[in-house]
């Protein structure tokens, strides 16, 4: 078994380890979980180093490559009769997403340090979910991809239904059903690809060399894009997100908004745009319009929210709009901005939800209007909240700025097959969100943390404890690092974007099929 399989295996083995411990020993369980996640972080660092060592040699050749180059590949035939393989590997985009997920699950476990109801089941489901997420990010066989995708989505139902708050059954049901409808679109799209290619294979790299007709691409591209769009909160299919996030327990919100929503952008980029470039060209503008709506609508929607989780969920709708907007812009800066935004939003929103959980655990309310003056009692949490908030409004020096300017420049520069004037108008409309975001972030945060303490019960609350400080501190540090030394991420992902871009720019004839 190779290192990449290890990325999937560690959370899985941790799940098994948790299963062997009696439920009463919940303290041991959380230690096992956090140890597993720490080992995973180390492994991720090793894989990143190895990946970078090999990939940096290929930077020049990738500039003209048409086929994604994978590293640390493991390929085993699985069902020969159906052309299904166990095919995993890493490229720059996967690497960025794996790093993101590894950080989020580690900090998420620390943020759930004080979950005391059914701790065992909670961590089992959480780790199962994250096994699926890692699987998705390293799979390059569509069947395997889909299998892991479903593994990531389904535990959500139980996690929200059991450990959630508020109308949790309704939210869990709605979220699961909407995502399954998205899955159905994806599955149909995958099967269409499988049959139309005539290659008798689910291997992504083989499918990339198939000659899909323009007519076929025009039909299948929107199907796959919308299917992934559901989980990427594409307007108007985003409504599972506010309810789902607000009902979910802390670590689940973190993983869900931080990582699962990224599966949408990842799939749209990796599969829809990569395999169906002609379809992408036809539909690019349409999806840019929808995502512009996403961006503005989410940010305006957030202004009126009184519940901190709804507030963050609408903010996520707006920020995930940037991901899909960048993808739909179909040029280097747009695609790069999309991946950067996936990473940035993942960390930022993970931090948001971790903090909301910590504040809620103390105040027992998430209503913004019932809070006030908390900064005096919880300075650490206040500072962390402001760092997340400033990242979300795109303050330079934090990761959001890097991602957003890429997306804006991508949208503004346009591409060769779309009406550039329309793209520019959409981009300028999207830039307006930087003002609206400032409005809701600052108004919301100042109401929670500033001013006099309005509720006398809050006079005795305490600040973050050590596990909580580590959790939020790590996330905030990542936001700063990604914003101050942006080239770390950019160098990582740029090479992997080139084949996608070259396929868009070159014609299909260039692939030689």
């Amino acid at each position, binding site marked *: 078994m190779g290192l990449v399989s290890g990325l999937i295996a560690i959370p899985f083995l941790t799940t098994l380890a948790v299963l062997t411990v009696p439920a009463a020993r919940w303290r041991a369980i959380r230690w096992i979980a956090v140890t597993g996640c720490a080992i995973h972080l180390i492994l991720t660092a090793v894989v990143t180093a190895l990946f970078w060592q090999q990939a940096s040699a290929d930077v020049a050749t990738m500039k003209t490559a048409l086929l994604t180059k994978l590293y640390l590949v493991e390929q085993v035939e699985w069902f020969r009769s159906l052309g299904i393989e166990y095919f995993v590997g890493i490229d720059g985009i996967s690497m960025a997403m794996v790093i993101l997920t590894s950080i989020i699950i580690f900090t998420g476990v620390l943020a759930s340090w004080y979950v005391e109801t059914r701790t065992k089941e909670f961590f089992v489901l959480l780790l199962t979910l994250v096994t699926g997420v890692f699987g998705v990010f390293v799979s390059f066989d569509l069947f395997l991809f889909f299998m892991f995708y479903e593994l990531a989505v389904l535990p959500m139902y139980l996690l929200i239904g059991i450990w959630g708050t508020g109308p949790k059954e309704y939210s869990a049901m709605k979220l699961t059903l909407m995502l399954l409808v998205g899955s159905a679109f994806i599955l149909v799209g995958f099967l269409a690809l499988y049959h139309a290619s005539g290659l008798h294979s689910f291997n992504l790299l083989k499918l990339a060399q198939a000659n899909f007709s323009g007519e076929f691409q025009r039909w299948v591209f929107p199907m796959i894009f919308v299917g992934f769009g559901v989980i990427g909160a594409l307007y*108007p299919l985003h409504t599972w997100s506010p309810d789902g996030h607000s009902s979910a327990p802390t670590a689940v919100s973190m993983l869900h908004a931080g990582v699962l929503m990224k599966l949408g952008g990842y799939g749209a980029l990796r599969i829809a745009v990569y395999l169906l470039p002609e379809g992408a060209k036809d539909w690019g503008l349409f999806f840019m319009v929808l995502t512009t709506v996403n961006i503005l*609508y989410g940010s305006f929607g957030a202004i009126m929210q009184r519940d901190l989780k709804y507030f963050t969920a609408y903010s996520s709708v707006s920020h995930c709009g940037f991901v899909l907007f960048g993808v739909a812009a179909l040029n280097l800066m747009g695609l790069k901005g999309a991946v950067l935004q996936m990473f940035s939003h993942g960390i930022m929103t993970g931090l948001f939800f971790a903090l909301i959980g910590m504040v809620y655990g103390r105040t027992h309310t998430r209503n913004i209007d019932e809070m006030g003056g908390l900064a005096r009692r919880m300075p650490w949490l206040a500072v962390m909240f402001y760092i997340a908030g400033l990242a979300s409004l795109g303050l330079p020096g934090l990761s959001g700025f890097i991602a957003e300017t*890429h997306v*804006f420049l991508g949208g503004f520069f346009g591409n060769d097959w779309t009406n550039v004037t329309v793209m520019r108008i959409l981009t300028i409309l999207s830039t*307006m969100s930087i003002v609206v975001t400032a409005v809701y972030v600052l*108004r919301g945060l100042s109401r929670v943390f500033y*001013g006099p303490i309005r509720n006398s019960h809050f006079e005795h609350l305490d600040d973050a404890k050590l596990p909580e400080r580590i959790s939020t501190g790590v996330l905030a540090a990542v936001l700063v690092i990604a914003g101050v030394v942006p080239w770390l991420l950019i160098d990582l992902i740029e090479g992997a974007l080139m084949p996608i871009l070259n396929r868009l720019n070159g014609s299909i004839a260039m692939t030689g099929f």
Partner: protein
Amino acid sequence: MTEPAGIVLKNAWLIPAIPLASFVLVGLVVRPLSRRLAGIVATAAIFVSAAMAWILAWEYFSATPHGEPTAVIPWTFEWLRYQTGLTVKLGVLVDPLSILLMVVVTTVSALVHLYSIGYMHDDEGSGRFFTWMNLFTFSMLGLVVAPNIVQMYVFWELVGVSSFLLIGYYYQKPSAVAASNKAFIVTRFADLGFMIGILILGFYGFRLFSELGDAGLQPFDFAFLTSPAVLERLATMHLGTCDISILTLSMVLVFMGAAGKSAMFPLHIWLPDAMEGPTPVSALIHAATMVVAGVYLVARLFAAFAASGTALMVVAYVGAFTCLFAAIIGLTQDDIKRVLAFSTLSQLGYMMFALGVATVGHPLGYTASMFHLFTHAFFKSLLFLAAGAVIHAVHTNNIWEMGGLVRKLPITHATFLVATLAIAGIWPLAGFFSKDEILGAALDGGHPVIFAVGLLVAGLTALYMFRIYFLTFWGKFRGMVTDPVHEVPALMRVPLVILAVASIVAGFVPMGRFVRIGEEHHAGINLAVAIPASILALIGIGLAWILYSADGRRAAQCTVRMGAFYTVIKQKFYIDEAYLFVTRRILFRFVARPIAWFDRHVVDGGVNLSGWIARTTGSVLRHLQTGQVQVYGVWFVGGALLVLLILWAGWR
């Protein structure tokens, strides 16, 4: 021509880097240990930076005594690569303009830090205060040395956030919180224009770079964007079929950002409220440094504004209007800091229109603007610090609750008077020379209306400044406070005295030798301007004496006679109310709330509806599955009959 060189110049990156290091050190290490030590470390760091800035100025100007000033970039590295050929290199640009600002920023910042050690002595949160002050100084220096427009934007936002943090320093006070949010959001709105301007410049700069670019430059570099070849091309490109060139469009958008930061009408509303911050913050950020960033940006891009012409006229008229508008409001305010804030607006208007009336052929206004920026930094920060000393002593901001402080606060009084005379433009203090140069530039540049406005405001400046001077220091003490009034401690006197000296001598600096476009010019005193301006200033002082010397009784009668007119001015022409109406009543009520409702009821309703349809269909169909063979039989026979019926119908 010799290339300027020197040990400090080679290491000029240290000037912003030292405050950064100090920010990290103080914020993470020193502050939790001791807040006193935090203040000392933070202050020491800025003093080192200031010393370096002065040495840098000496090294640079002694190398180029009279030659054409050259821009040097002693340190740069690639920070952000958007795509091949579109990269952002962070760097330190050393040219006369950036040196001027570095000197001003570090000097004022160092003195304000020193003053703050005394001012914040009893404040439990002073560690936090000094951390943010260091962050601000770093950000401002990063802005000043920016060689490209993206770095400018990056630090532009960082100064915005440090200003936000410092205005909201008293975070338990709702008015301070509201003011900090307002400051950030209003400037953010302005920055939207800046951002779109950067997008446009980035796109066209990138396109033109392949044919016009120089080695060593990047499309975002100021040096590239203001090169004649690029400007010529940008000026001939048009926005679709409109009669607006790309150059004008982008410069007007960039100016929107500048107007936000420099609080030009109608984006000025945040600055008076920003006085909620501690007084040293007002002195440093909202008087001497951050608010001049907009003026600095226009000066940096002056060639581009000048090439557009239209954009430069926008600058000139917005500046002149703000200059007059703010001076009028300044006459009516009761809060000493707010009067100073409106005064700052008015003086920024001077700097702005001075740039606006300059042309490449007649660049006196450019020098004059930077000259005024330089002198204003000293006397305005002094005014704030002295006002802070007064507030410290009497615990109120309201000038009607002061009075008679001349004997109780002799040093504060003396320094405040120096600064007041300087801003009023009385010879031989600093403000006289720089204002004279601005007015001269407006007159010679062929802008009689703007010149007249400038002249009138010179009189108004003297009037509103001596109004607060007389009300604060003369007459009887009108306050409620029974505590004995104390003069500030020695630590706080030092910066007051140093700034007072600077306010006296700064006017003798031959700015035309250092910061200029084209030939060096020796601007003597322009008597045709100086005499009427001085007379107006003296009339202003005299009027203030008549109205406000006897505890303002005569002014009160005047006020009553002016009636509604006075009220409108005192309410700042209801601009804030207009904004509130647009945001609260229109944007929130008619955009944000409907969207939130629409999402919950229409979009989500659609989802719930499909769920409901599925459920209802299911529950209806459920009744069909009864398990009774007889019922199935009935359905079977019925179905078969239906099929037969259809077949029969088909055959006919």
